[in-house]
């Protein structure tokens, strides 16, 4: 039995405070995944709290024989992110990221401009591609884990990630072209 499974058993048996160990271990990856998927700097922490609260309530139903705890937790986070995206109002033109001054020679501004383009490229990806890309690139999860989280085949995960990378490479090429 892994240490994590043991902690989970303690929590299910009534040791509520042990859940703090789980929260402290996963708060950053879960919050980061949500922020990178929903692209909302205000609410990702609240959604992450919802994820942990839902995980706590469902903890007794977690079956270590079926999946890793992290995969199970990321699946809850994935579902909450999808719900948040459905509720999210579209950005108005004034809220969209603005291009920085192209005439400014400062490297820092140019770098910010690159990042804005890549952010916009990521934001423009279809939701399923974006999730697969975020889980693979920023959370560094295996294709198997992503397939389990998304409930799809490994081949589909690979093709979603490849398509996402191609789109972002296109955004990068446009930057080079504009410069």
């Amino acid at each position, binding site marked *: 039995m892994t240490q994590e499974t043991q902690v989970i058993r303690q929590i299910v048996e009534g040791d*509520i*405070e042990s*859940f*703090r160990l789980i*929260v*402290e271990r996963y*708060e*950053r990856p879960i*919050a*980061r995944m949500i*922020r*990178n998927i929903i692209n909302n700097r205000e609410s990702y*922490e609240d959604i*992450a*709290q919802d994820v*942990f*609260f839902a995980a*706590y*309530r469902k903890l007794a139903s977690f079956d270590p024989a079926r999946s890793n705890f992290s995969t199970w937790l990321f699946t809850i986070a994935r579902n909450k992110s999808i719900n948040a995206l459905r509720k999210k109002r579209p950005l108005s033109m004034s809220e969209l990221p603005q291009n920085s001054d192209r005439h400014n020679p400062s*490297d820092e501004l*140019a*770098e910010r401009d*690159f*990042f804005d383009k*890549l*952010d916009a490229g990521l934001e423009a990806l279809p939701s399923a591609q974006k999730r697969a890309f975020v889980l693979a*690139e*920023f959370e560094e999860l295996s294709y198997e884990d992503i397939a389990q989280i998304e409930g799809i085949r490994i081949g589909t995960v690979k093709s979603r990630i490849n398509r996402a990378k191609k789109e*972002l*490479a296109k955004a*990068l*090429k446009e*930057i*080079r072209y504009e410069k």
Partner: protein
Amino acid sequence: MKSEEIYNAWKERKSQIDIRENFSDELMNQIYRYESEKRKPLFNGLRLIELISAHRFVKAAVVTAGAVTGFVRIMFVVYAFLAC
């Protein structure tokens, strides 16, 4: 900057995350509140009153049940009076 360098720098930036300091405290408080609510008995007098006053339909059902009971009771009295 080369494309790969830009991409890696962007990835590095996207991998950074700020979490408020009291994140886990807030969550644990929420969980403790949830547990204490769960452990409350489902029906004691005060909880029943709370339940009735919080839901429009429950309130209407209680008033209707009271009115029906009162009406039946009056009918019994009238019936007993007439039977004498």
